[in-house]
């Protein structure tokens, strides 16, 4: 329930439903009956945040405790922010309408580097100092999880704690610890030192970073007994892990508004550009029985008519066919559509595709990622042109007329040939359509190329690679467009400056904290939205702080350089990543984990167990 003060403004802002709370399945508790109030803060709009599975899991998990109450907070739109600032309305949580500055934990999720300024803006809207050192009281403790905390260094000045890895267990342990330290009247310093002893907890302020004359990192030294290496947290058994049976059902349309159930964590593929594929190893699989039960429960409590079986590569789930066959009778009966995001073209049987179309037909998307076989070998995307075309032909035979293809530019060793190859592959897909004798009369085919730019990320084999500068990316984009000769193929492209800024933060260090604060004070926020991104203010902010952003993006790093994130341990060994990098430059592929264990080292996090190897499935 929103604060009373805001009522008269609600009809003056866009989409008031973002700010009212009261959605079905939202959890309202008596604040006097709980010890810990937890604000789950999503540093983007309601529509984006409400689509995020991690929030749904942690929300239900924390609320499963009697002694804690988790509420939701999103970044307000610019119109609402203005109303709040003009009328002294501090950032509030949707369930209670209470100001979050009085909460015990503010937990942010960092899914994307370009939301960093939103974090500062939300802390400020809450009425809190943005820097960790200026928030001297024990509470609120400001924490963060999500993919970006694998290198949280650019945000090290702002967060008290970050949580690399799976959040389920460590969040609960942190709440227990804070409850204890709050009860005994401890200081923030005492709490942080104790928290640093929990596996999967990183307290940035307990690490001293020294730099060399050339601005590379000289050393990272832990203090107060904090561990030298912070090992990410790993949930060993997904079947035993808490999983929600209720989702908050938004009133307004959000990006993904459906039942989403994770089927496994990790990925067997080893595409060399893909950070998620390396961060989430080793592979852990949820049983089909658990998946089905969770799908059913969520559909019943929400009324959703779509289920997304979610993972990094859904067609790699062992037993997918059986799972879907088991689910189809009741999903068809209840008019529920099953969506399988992240399918691979090389292993998805045609019969399965037909079965899935029983209720509603969804779009078809392939991700060849690169235009030539040589470059696909460099990035270890082990699919062939033949497989793409074969699947496209099957889809056209099945009645599809539109296909979307994902590609990347700016990949290591890329040449003009590779970029032209993107247009050629799209053309080949178009040709495939016209080969189909049963194609619908009078209907044309539409092939959309979605063109992203590589941002080399920590903990991938490309973490040492230089990133193309924005002007180079623009040239490459234009070159691709000039190679497309048919109207049946259209190209949509990312903003190169966005990828550049993402690249700076992805591989940045602590010296960027000042830049982020300067840029935010100048008015930068919602940087991930093209209409809000202000490159000139960012350029000023880099200059004012004496930082050359290309130091972080355009430079090739040596294998022996200390990287700002080297004190994080995500299981995968540096030697493995070096080996993969060297193979990339020789255009040599690495077989997927199902064919042969590549020895990445991540199974040490899981007591030596990787479900890909250990669990046999009939």
């Amino acid at each position: 329930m929103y604060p009373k003060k805001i009522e008269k403004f609600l009809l003056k802002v866009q989409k008031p439903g973002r700010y009212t709370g009261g959605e079905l399945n939202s959890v309202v508790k008596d604040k006097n009956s709980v010890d810990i109030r937890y604000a789950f803060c999503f540093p983007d709009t309601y529509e984006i945040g409400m689509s995020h599975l991690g929030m749904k899991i942690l929300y239900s998990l924390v609320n499963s405790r009697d002694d804690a109450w988790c509420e939701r907070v999103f970044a307000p739109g610019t119109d609402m922010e203005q109303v709040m600032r003009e009328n002294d309305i501090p950032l509030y949580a949707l369930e209670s309408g209470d100001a979050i500055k009085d909460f015990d934990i503010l937990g942010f999720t960092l899914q994307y580097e370009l939301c960093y300024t939103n974090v500062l803006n939300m802390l400020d809207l809450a009425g809190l100092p943005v820097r960790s050192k200026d928030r001297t009281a024990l509470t609120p403790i400001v924490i963060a999880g999500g993919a970006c905390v694998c290198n949280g260094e650019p945000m090290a000045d702002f967060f008290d704690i970050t949580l690399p890895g799976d959040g389920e267990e460590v969040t609960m342990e942190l709440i227990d610890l804070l409850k204890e330290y709050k009860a005994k009247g401890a200081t923030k310093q005492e709490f942080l030192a104790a928290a640093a002893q929990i596996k999967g907890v990183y307290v940035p302020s307990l690490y001293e970073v020294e730099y060399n004359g050339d601005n590379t990192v000289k050393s990272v030294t832990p203090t107060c007994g904090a561990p030298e290496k912070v090992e990410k947290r790993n949930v060993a058994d997904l079947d035993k892990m808490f999983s929600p049976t209720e989702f908050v059902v938004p009133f307004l349309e959000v990006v993904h508004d459906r039942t989403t159930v994770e089927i496994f964590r990790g990925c067997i593929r080893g595409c060399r550009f893909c950070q998620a594929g390396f961060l989430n190893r080793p592979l852990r699989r949820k049983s089909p029985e658990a998946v089905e039960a969770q799908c059913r429960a969520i559909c019943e409590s929400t009324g959703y008519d779509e289920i997304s079986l979610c993972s990094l590569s859904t067609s790699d789930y062992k037993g997918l066919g059986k799972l879907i066959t088991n689910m189809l009778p009741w999903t068809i009966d209840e008019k529920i559509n099953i969506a399988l995001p992240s399918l691979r073209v090389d292993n998805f049987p045609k019969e399965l595709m037909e079965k899935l179309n029983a209720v509603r037909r969804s779009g078809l998307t392939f991700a060849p990622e690169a235009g030539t076989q040589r470059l696909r070998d460099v990035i270890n995307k082990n699919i062939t042109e033949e497989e793409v075309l074969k699947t496209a032909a099957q889809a056209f035979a099945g009645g599809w007329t539109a296909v979307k293809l994902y590609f990347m530019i700016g990949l290591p060793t890329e040449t003009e040939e590779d970029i032209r190859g993107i247009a050629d592959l799209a053309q080949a897909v178009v040709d495939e359509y016209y080969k189909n004798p049963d194609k619908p009369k009078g209907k044309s085919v539409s092939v959309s190329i979605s063109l992203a730019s590589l941002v080399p990320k920590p903990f991938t084999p490309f973490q040492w690679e230089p990133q193309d500068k924005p002007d180079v990316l623009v040239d490459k984009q234009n070159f691709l467009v000039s190679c497309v000769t048919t109207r049946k193929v259209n190209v949509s492209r990312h903003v190169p400056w966005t990828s550049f800024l993402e690249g700076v933060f992805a591989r940045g260090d602590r010296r960027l904290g000042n830049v982020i604060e300067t840029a935010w004070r100048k008015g930068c926020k919602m940087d991930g939205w093209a209409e809000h991104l202000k490159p000139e203010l960012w350029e000023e902010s880099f200059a004012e702080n004496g930082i050359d952003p290309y130091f972080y993006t355009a430079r090739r790093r040596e294998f022996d350089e200390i990287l700002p994130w080297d004190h994080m341990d995500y299981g995968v060994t540096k030697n493995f990543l070096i080996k993969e990098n060297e193979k990339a430059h020789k255009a040599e592929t690495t077989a997927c984990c199902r064919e042969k264990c590549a020895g990445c080292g991540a199974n040490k996090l899981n007591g030596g167990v990787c479900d890909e190897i250990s669990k046999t499935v009939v």
Partner: protein
Amino acid sequence: MKSVRLWFKKGGLAVYISHLDMNRCMTRAVRRAEIPLWYTEGFNPHPYMTFLMPLPLGQEGKREPLDIRIEQDMSFDEIKSKLNSVMPDGIEIVDVLEPVNKPNEIAAAEYEITVEFATEGEAEGFAAGAQSIIDGGILNAEKRSKRGIKTVNLCEMVRSFSIEAEKNFCKIKTILAAGNSVNLNADLLLNALFAEFAAEYEKTSITRTRLLREDLSDFR
């Protein structure tokens, strides 16, 4: 297959649910309640569900009709209690009945409107002025329609109007044209009146109380 007319109340936080979002919200409620809804046939089956008179964002509704079709027989009492057990806060099914009138018989709607002013004087002034304008029969305003923006005389769409000042509030009871051919949004009327007097109000609350037929009998 059987047609059923649900009558629902919308208030509280639910007034911030737009008409489009309402559609999704009710579809899901009906699914949660396991009402044997009839689905359209064809490429993209969707449940048959029609809001007869969309309620504008921010307005309350006391008795709003929603037509659905069910596949198997289910008692009206059961439909009502099942739906109410899964409704979000602010929406309540008040009646489940067989449709009597055709949707296009809706011709007017009755509203209760409260306007809050900063002072008693402003409320009195507005009440007197608004009544005389409506009684005078001319209040021009720009109205958006499918064919673009045009200036219309709103009074031609006002079937009855009475306003009283009470302390710093004005209470309005009015019947306005409603339906597919001629329709007047109560917001538009209020804003036109505010513009006429350059009146500054604190807050308005608009409640649609009833839908009526041409002869001003209840739409059922």
